[in-house]
């Protein structure tokens, strides 16, 4: 439900890192979204399209990489991918686990085409 507000934040951060010329040449914004972040990638995608429309960066596409939920077990030390319905270590069945990946809402990088000289 807050995907639109996340999309606006992404656009703001991209804008802060680019000159007006670069903004017009921006083609791609890469983000990493954790499976356990509460962000629905499809909603973020459509939120982004709505929010970027009419701005200087309107040619930019959003590329979302979804990061699985991984926990590290404090009993056996193993890192495992789990589904967010049962926080139990699949190796030793301990429930003393810490999330190591899958929470993130990260902006990774910006791709800009070279300006056409001459």
């Amino acid at each position, binding site marked *: 439900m807050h995907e639109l507000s996340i999309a606006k934040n992404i656009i703001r951060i991209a804008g802060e890192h680019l000159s007006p010329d670069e903004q017009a040449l921006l083609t791609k914004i890469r983000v990493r979204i954790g499976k356990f972040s509460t962000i629905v990638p499809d909603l973020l995608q459509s939120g982004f399209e709505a929010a970027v429309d009419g701005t200087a960066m309107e040619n930019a596409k959003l590329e979302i990489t979804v990061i699985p939920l991984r926990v590290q077990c404090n009993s056996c030390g193993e890192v495992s991918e789990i589904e967010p*319905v049962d926080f139990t270590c699949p190796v030793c069945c301990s429930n003393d686990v810490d999330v190591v990946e899958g929470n993130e809402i990260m902006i990774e990088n910006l791709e800009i085409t070279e300006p056409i000289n001459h």
Partner: protein
Amino acid sequence: MSIKTIERKVLQKNDEVANQNRSFFDKQGIFALNLVSSPGSGKTSLLEWTLKELEGRVKTAVVIGDVQTSLDAERLSSFDLPIIQLVTNGSCHLEAALVKDALADINPEETELLFIENVGNLVCPSSFDLGEEMKVVISSTVEGDDKPLKYPAMFRNSKVLIINKTDLLPYTNCDLDQLRTNALKINPDLTIFETSCVSGEGVDDWCNWLEKQVMEKTWKNVSA
């Protein structure tokens, strides 16, 4: 083609303000709670009971977030304590900056416990740190026993679960044991209370526990 590396959290700005709020709470010895639930689970009702129970025991202030109205704040206006209403203007969650603004309206000398009632929503508030000591999630019996599995982030990120509306158990298909089991599968460290905001049953256990937490925070602050 060139690539500009950013590598930063999209919500970094919110996190920074949340950390400012957290330092403020730590410095002033204020125990801040972020109260979250679906719409209508009983956040304001539990506040009414809790404020009554803790009257004269703990110096309390309340910040209430609402999408549009000030109805919840009006319900608490009979209490002789600071009640600060925040209207989010359509936004589905509170953000740290709004809470920071509200802090200007409380007297830190006169505050040991701060309740922040978030907007009724089990999804979005879990992404937005407000600087609170802990989140308290309320799930009511009429919502069934599968809420923890459907909204795991909120239950994982909370320290306390309050199962409210226990008076309505006979009229629902909610299995209390199943609800507890589901919640503990997501977060084995949850402290769980059961309350009814009609009879008041269970409110005393919750309030005694809470008072202890507040005292520990205040003492830590005095000895620091």
